[in-house]
Each structure stands twice: as structure tokens, then as C-alpha cells.
């Protein structure tokens, strides 16, 4: 990405006046290219050259904001095709789609599902962030539905290729910063104007990849860059190709014409098959969907999709950790057992889920184990008897408990003797090896 030192050198006046603090323009240019110095340090660089530079160093994919207030979300802004190369940054958002042919009961049922599916998973609130409303041919009904769905307090995706209808719909919800998906080769100018006038993001649709490219160029030509690209194709294979090609062209081909977030209507591709819809949504979580449109949302499809999204969009450089402390379950008292695990989020999540499932009062002591799994942290010396002792001593549990029982993860049963020595007065119990066995274990613990 960006310009080389030589490219930047050509933008300097080549006076070697040293005012920038470097002996020569070339030395300065090399530093700018490496990102160590701002181009502004040279007072003689023209505005034109600065613009050129900022254009060249702009990220290959634009970050687009949609939604207002607490609902504001960023889309796009990705820099890599594979998450291990760096990280994926802006998680895809899910939309549930309605249309103007829907009967009231169907509409109410779906709206109710959206309200119901709203839960927390490892510190993240999971819910469909968007509602899509598609226009087919009934304008009054369309507008009525948009109005009704405002109560859900979600960001709208208005799917409408009739500029006049779209204008009325946008007027109803423009303060929520919706996305308007429906610009095509026939209506582009009207749609761009509508989006521009209302300051909202515009979605572009075209049949083939080349058509989409040409349309995007045209929109940019109309000086509009708040765009998302509808990469849905005529079938599953074409959609997969189009979505990947768009992202790849932007990131590898360094062609910013395709440097926009995507929207994929997996609901259309699945043709009423809910399982297929889940398979496709999972696919586009991994492969470059930015907005994924579903027919409906229920816990059955939400649980795996949100969980998968959470996994794929974690930063590979930072293992997810939970705060080291004592967690409480089902109002534990002075007699309740203390379980021990590590601060690696995945481990904590599984273990705490199982303790919850057991519905038995218990404490869960989580020492600072470097954010590693039980065995890894033990092997790395971060989960030894002294770490456990310090954790327990500093936790205040000794004062609180009349019956002191500490349950070690079964995988580090070898620590039992050492921990017994370090914690006199405690009964050290070896717990199960697998989290799945915790409920049974806890229920049977006297």
C-alpha cells in the first residue's frame, strides 16, 4: 500500500533546505514513506501533493458508518483477507427482512423474534442490528411497515429501487441513518441525489461483477462515496464469487473502486430453507459479508451465527481474557465450594456456563494465568501452587468461608499435593477433566 520513498521524493521541491530537520529531501521522503514523519513537516509541499499522498496512503477499503446514536456501527475498513495476517476489524451486521406483501401476523411474529433474540455472550450483546424492508409494488403498505418497525429501534436497510417510494421511506427514518439499497444502472442519479441530500449510505446493485464495478465508478463519478455493494448474485456460486472478488480486488488489487463493504441477501439464496440460510450466513461471516440479510431470526440460527462471528472477529494477537477475580454463582454462602479455572475467555466461558447449568451455589476463582488455557498456563508456569495460593489469600475467601474447599481442574490434578502444602486448612479436591462433567460433579459434591 502507499507510496515509496522515491514517489514521495518526487513530491518535494528538492531544495534540500533542511527545514524539515533532515539533511536532504530524499532522507525526509524515506522517513515519510516509512510512516515515521508527517509530510506536513516540509513547509514547501503543495496542497496538491498532500492530497495525492493522502489518497495514496488511504486504506484500501473505506470504513462506512451506519445507524445513529447508540446504534451507530462501522462497516468495512478491513485490511487483510485472512484474519491471521492481522485481524478483521468490523464485524458483519445481521438484518432481518420484511416486505410489503407480508400479512400483519407474519410481521408481528418476526418483529417479536427480533425482540426476543437479545442476549449476552462473552461480554458482547447479541442481536440483529438491522431491519431490512423490501419494496415490491405496494407503496402504502411499504411505508406503513417502515413506520411500524420504527418501534424496534434498529437501523433500517431500505431495499427499494423506486426512487420516489424510497424518498418517502427515507423521509420517515432518515434520522436513524439507514442504508438505502436499490441504486442500479437505471436510477443511479436519482438515488445518489436522495442519499446525498439525506446524508445516508447507498447500496448499489448490478448483475455481474463488471456491471457492479462500472456502477460503482459511476457513483464515485457523481461524487458519492458512502456506499455499500450488493454482492448477491443470481445463485449461491455467483454470490460467493462476487463477494470474494470484490474484497480481493480492493485489498490485493489495491483498487478502491471495490473498497466498500458488502451486503449479501442470503435469505434470497436460501429460498426458504432455514438450515441452508444458516450455512450461507456462516459462509459470509468468514468470507467478506458486511451486512448479512436473513429471513428470520430465532435462537436456533442466532446462537451459532453470533458465536461464529464473535470467534472470527476476535483479534488474533490478543487472546480474549476475562478479569481475574472471584466470580459468584447462585448466591454462594460460607459453605459453598470454590472452583478454580483460568482467565482465558474460552475456558472461563465454558466453565462458567456449566456452573450456571448446574444451578448449585459456587465460587469460581480466576487467577491471572496469562490468558492461556489450563494446560498451557500450567506448562508455562503461570498456573502453579504459588499463583493459586496468592489468588486465594488475596481474594478474601479465607475470611468469608467456614468450610474451605478448593476444586482444581482435573487437567492439573498433579498440583494437588503442592496446593495442599501452600493452603493449609483447605480441602483440595480434584475436579472433572472436562467442563461438561461439572454439573454432575457439583450436584454430587456433598
Amino acid at each position: 500500500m502507499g507510496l515509496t520513498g522515491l514517489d514521495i521524493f518526487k513530491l518535494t521541491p528538492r531544495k534540500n533546505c533542511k527545514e524539515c530537520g533532515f539533511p536532504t529531501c530524499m532522507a525526509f521522503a524515506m522517513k515519510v514513506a516509512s510512516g515515521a514523519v508527517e509530510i506536513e513537516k516540509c513547509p514547501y509541499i503543495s496542497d496538491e501533493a498532500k492530497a495525492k499522498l493522502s489518497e495514496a496512503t488511504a486504506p484500501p477499503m473505506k470504513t462506512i458508518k451506519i445507524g445513529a446514536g447508540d446504534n451507530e456501527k462501522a462497516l468495512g475498513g478491513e485490511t487483510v483477507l485472512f484474519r491471521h495476517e492481522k485481524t478483521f476489524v468490523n464485524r458483519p451486521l445481521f438484518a432481518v427482512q420484511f416486505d410489503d406483501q407480508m400479512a400483519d401476523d407474519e410481521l408481528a411474529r418476526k418483529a417479536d423474534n427480533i425482540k426476543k433474540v437479545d442476549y449476552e455472550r462473552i461480554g458482547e450483546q447479541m442481536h440483529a442490528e438491522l431491519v431490512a424492508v423490501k419494496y415490491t409494488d405496494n407503496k402504502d403498505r411499504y411505508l406503513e411497515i417502515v413506520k411500524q418497525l420504527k418501534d424496534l429501534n434498529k437501523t433500517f436497510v431500505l431495499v427499494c429501487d423506486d426512487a420516489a417510494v424510497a424518498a418517502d421511506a427515507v423521509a420517515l427514518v432518515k434520522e436513524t441513518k439507514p442504508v438505502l439499497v436499490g441504486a442500479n444502472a437505471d436510477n443511479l442519479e436519482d438515488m445518489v441525489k436522495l442519499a446525498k441530500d439525506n446524508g445516508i449510505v447507498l447500496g448499489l446493485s448490478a448483475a455481474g461483477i463488471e456491471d457492479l464495478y462500472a456502477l460503482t465508478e459511476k457513483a464515485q463519478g457523481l461524487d458519492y462515496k458512502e456506499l455499500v455493494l450488493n454482492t448477491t448474485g443470481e445463485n449461491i456460486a455467483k454470490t460467493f464469487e462476487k463477494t470474494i472478488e470484490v474484497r480481493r480486488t480492493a485489498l490485493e488489487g489495491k483498487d478502491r473502486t471495490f473498497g466498500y463493504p458488502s451486503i449479501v441477501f442470503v435469505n434470497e439464496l436460501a429460498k426458504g430453507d432455514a438450515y441452508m440460510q444458516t450455512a450461507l450466513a456462516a459462509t459470509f461471516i468468514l468470507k467478506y459479508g458486511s451486512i448479512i440479510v436473513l429471513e428470520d431470526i430465532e435462537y436456533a440460527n442466532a446462537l451459532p451465527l453470533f458465536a461464529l462471528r464473535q470467534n472470527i472477529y476476535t483479534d488474533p494477537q490478543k487472546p480474549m481474557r476475562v478479569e481475574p477475580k472471584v466470580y459468584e454463582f447462585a448466591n454462594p454462602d460460607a459453605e459453598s465450594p470454590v472452583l478454580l479455572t483460568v482467565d482465558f475467555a474460552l475456558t472461563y466461558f465454558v466453565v462458567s456456563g456449566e456452573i450456571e447449568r448446574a444451578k448449585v451455589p459456587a465460587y469460581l476463582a480466576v487467577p491471572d494465568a496469562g490468558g492461556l488455557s489450563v494446560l498451557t498456563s500450567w506448562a508455562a508456569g503461570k498456573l502453579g501452587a504459588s499463583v493459586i495460593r496468592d489468588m486465594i489469600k488475596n481474594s478474601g475467601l479465607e475470611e468469608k468461608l467456614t468450610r474451605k474447599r478448593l476444586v482444581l481442574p482435573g487437567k492439573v490434578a498433579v498440583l494437588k499435593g503442592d496446593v495442599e502444602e501452600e493452603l493449609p486448612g483447605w480441602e483440595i479436591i480434584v475436579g472433572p477433566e472436562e467442563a461438561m462433567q461439572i454439573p454432575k460433579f457439583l450436584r454430587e459434591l456433598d
Partner: protein
Amino acid sequence: MAYTKVAKKYSGKINEVTLGTGDKAITIGGRNVLPLHHFDGEVGNPPKVGLEITDIVPEDWNDALKDLYSDVIGDAAKWAKYVEDNYAPDFICLHFVGASPDGANKSVEECVEVAKQVADAITTPLVVAGSKNDEKDGELFAAVAEALQGKNILILAAKEENYKTVGAAGALAYQQKVAAESSVDINLAKQLNILMTQLGVKEEDIVMHLGSAAAGYGFEYLSSTMDRVILAALGQNDTTLQMPIITPVAFDTWGVKEAVASETDEPEWGNAEERGIHLEVATAAACLVSGADAVIVRHPKSLQTVKNFIEGLLQ
């Protein structure tokens, strides 16, 4: 400016491995492009989907599945035949959960008997999976490989702890295919493949099992390991990583809370069977897109969905 496609040409290619015999034999691998990237070049053999059955009645399975199979679940051979006739999976995975020393602890002889009956009952390619006890599995696989000589089965899997027994008996003595199982780490995968080939196992007899995870349970590690393995295999032509990949999705997905919790425990969540299927297809799709050439699922509806999914992606 006109649109220019970013050309993707790789020097490496995923090996082809054939399982089973006769008309129903299947071949996986053979592509020189990223998974399912039909638009880039030679996409090879479409990924294959297998259905899991077990040697003994699987007490911990979802009740709806146990009901579905109630007539055949007590007899693995009948079960296999039923699955072959009704669901036509690309292969059947016979999972020896009963061999576990922590469980039913069936003897190797008993297991071999079951394996023979199953193999005789079907013409669909067979994959045998073990009990997670490395020592027992080593013995079990060696005996099963011998008993089913000529059937060209896949043994799932040889690990660092038992690859010598499994590799020597399975692939060398009895010419079966062997999966090399590592735990979600490109270097461990590579090392085991090298150890296996040093033992004399031919590359075209090895499939990789890179580990598995349900969506939501560290799936990012699996997905990124697959990405890295495939980029090395294709981009750097690393022949020690060009084996096709099999992922037993069923083994993980049906064991996590989202699939296990009863409707009484989680009333909001709804029917557990439904949740299990959604989790299974989401995980299977994510594996296939990341690079699995074969996946094993448990629910017939998952099988059907994933088959349609693959067909849809390659149409």
C-alpha cells in the same frame, strides 16, 4: 478504468485421496485453488459429507436422533445399512465410542466384529473413528485395519502418541488410508505428516485432521490454522501440507451447550434438535469454506443441507 480480476495462480496442489472401493468410492482433494473457489481454476473434487453412527447405543445423543434411529440403533450394521439406503451419505463414519476405557470399554475383538459387520453391510466408503484413548485406539485401529483389508477405509486418526502403530498397521501393512490428527497448529500438523511419511506412509494415503471446534468455541483457531495450512500448501507448494483435510464436525457441535441444553434449562432457546442442526450446519459450512475437503455430521438434515450447500457453491 476497467475491472481487472486479481489473478490467483498457485504452484501447489492438494493431493487426491480415494476412499472405499467400487462404484461408491470417493476421491477428495485435487484442487489448486482456495476452497470452493471455482472461479479461480481447478477446483478439484467436490468436498464430501459423511454421516456418523456409533458402535454402541450412544446414550448422550439428542433424543430426537435416537428416536429417529430407534429401530436400528442397537445394531451398528443395520444402522449403517439404514443410513446408506435412506440418506446416501458420501461416506459413513463408524465412531467407536464404546471402545473407551472410561465408558463401555468394549474389547478390541468386539469392536473388530462390529467393524466387519458394518463393512459387510454397506458399499459406501467407511471411516472409523476411535475412543479418544490413544493407547486403546492404537490397538483398535491396527486390528480393524487388518480385518477390513481391501475395503480402503480411512482411519480417524493417528496422533503423535500412536502414529507408529496406526501408521504401520493401517497404511503400511493393510493399505488403508490414515488421517493424521494434530491439535489446531500448523507446525504440529506438518510435523506429524513428516513423521508419517518417514515411517513409509505414502503422501497419497494421508488425510489431515487438523483438530475441530464448534462455532463459538475457539473456532477462529481452527479456521486460521486451515487458512495457513492451505496457503502454505498452495502458495509455497509445501508438500508436507498438501494432504486433504477431514473435519469431524459432529463430535464437537453436539457436545456444547447450544446443542445440549434442554428446553427446560433454556426455555427461550427452543427445541434442542433444531439448535443442534443449525450449529452443525454453520460449523460444517465454516469448515468447508476454510478448507475441509470432507466433513462428518450427525444429523441427516445436516447431511442434506451441507450436500446442497456444496452443490450450490459449485453449480
